[in-house]
């Protein structure tokens, strides 16, 4: 009885953590798009692209991609599509880290993408059964 209650409490805590991380990840996906489109925090994203040697139009592609990923992460079901959205999000943050390392940016540039990379992996690992594909 006590153990069953404990398991229930744990799974509830897991679900709450999942939603906090996933909500934040989706929020960041939308917010970063407004930076990429140069609507908010004007000039920052373009400056970053220059630093990494990427073309400024890449921001439009990346912004559209993260805007597509956000609803996929939030909406119910669609476990296969979620797998794609998580991997795309993972590639963006891992790619940002790799690019900063290649151009020799100061290490504090790695902090934000590293935190978001961890949130991506944690949200993926904690996703509940209804949002998960079980391998047969």
């Amino acid at each position, binding site marked *: 009885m006590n153990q069953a209650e404990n398991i229930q409490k744990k799974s509830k805590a897991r679900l709450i953590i999942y939603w906090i991380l996933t909500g934040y990840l989706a929020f960041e996906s939308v917010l970063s798009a407004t930076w990429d489109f140069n609507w908010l925090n004007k000039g920052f994203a373009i400056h970053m692209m220059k630093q*990494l*040697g*990427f*073309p400024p*139009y*890449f921001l*439009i*592609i990346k912004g559209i*991609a993260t805007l597509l990923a956000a609803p996929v992460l939030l909406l119910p079901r669609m*476990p*296969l599509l979620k*797998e*794609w959205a998580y*991997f*795309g999000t993972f*590639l963006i943050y891992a*790619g940002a880290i*790799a*690019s900063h390392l*290649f*151009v020799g940016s100061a290490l504090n540039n790695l902090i934000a993408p590293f935190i978001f990379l961890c949130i991506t992996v944690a949200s993926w690992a904690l996703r509940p059964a209804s949002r998960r*594909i*079980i*391998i*047969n």
Partner: protein
Amino acid sequence: MEKEITIKEVKTSKGRLFAYWIITAIVALQVAAGAYFDLTGFPAFSQIAQHLGYPLYLLSILGVLRILALIALLAPRFPRLKEWTYAGLFFEYTVAAASHIAVGDGAKVWIMPLIFAGILIASWYLRPLSRRLA
């Protein structure tokens, strides 16, 4: 559960499996060639990267990713890893097409990565049960 899978496996026709392997071999060849040219600094690839405005170190990153993709694509099982591989390659081809459009290249140029994306989706669609997430 196990019985159900065997029944489904039998249902996967030989023709479909044959088509899967032909198409997947084309994808694998394309990925392998890409990895080789990326990592050996093939001039045509560097020129395309420069033409699109991407840094040359991106080719090193893509080259390593393509080697990983090739292994994941050809190895048996690992259906989730395969799903990520298909996703990664699909993103790469569509971003390549979008980049060519962004710098004002003609349809003859940007249609190529979209054709590759189409071949990739065909391989994904035909993948047999043992290589598929439930």
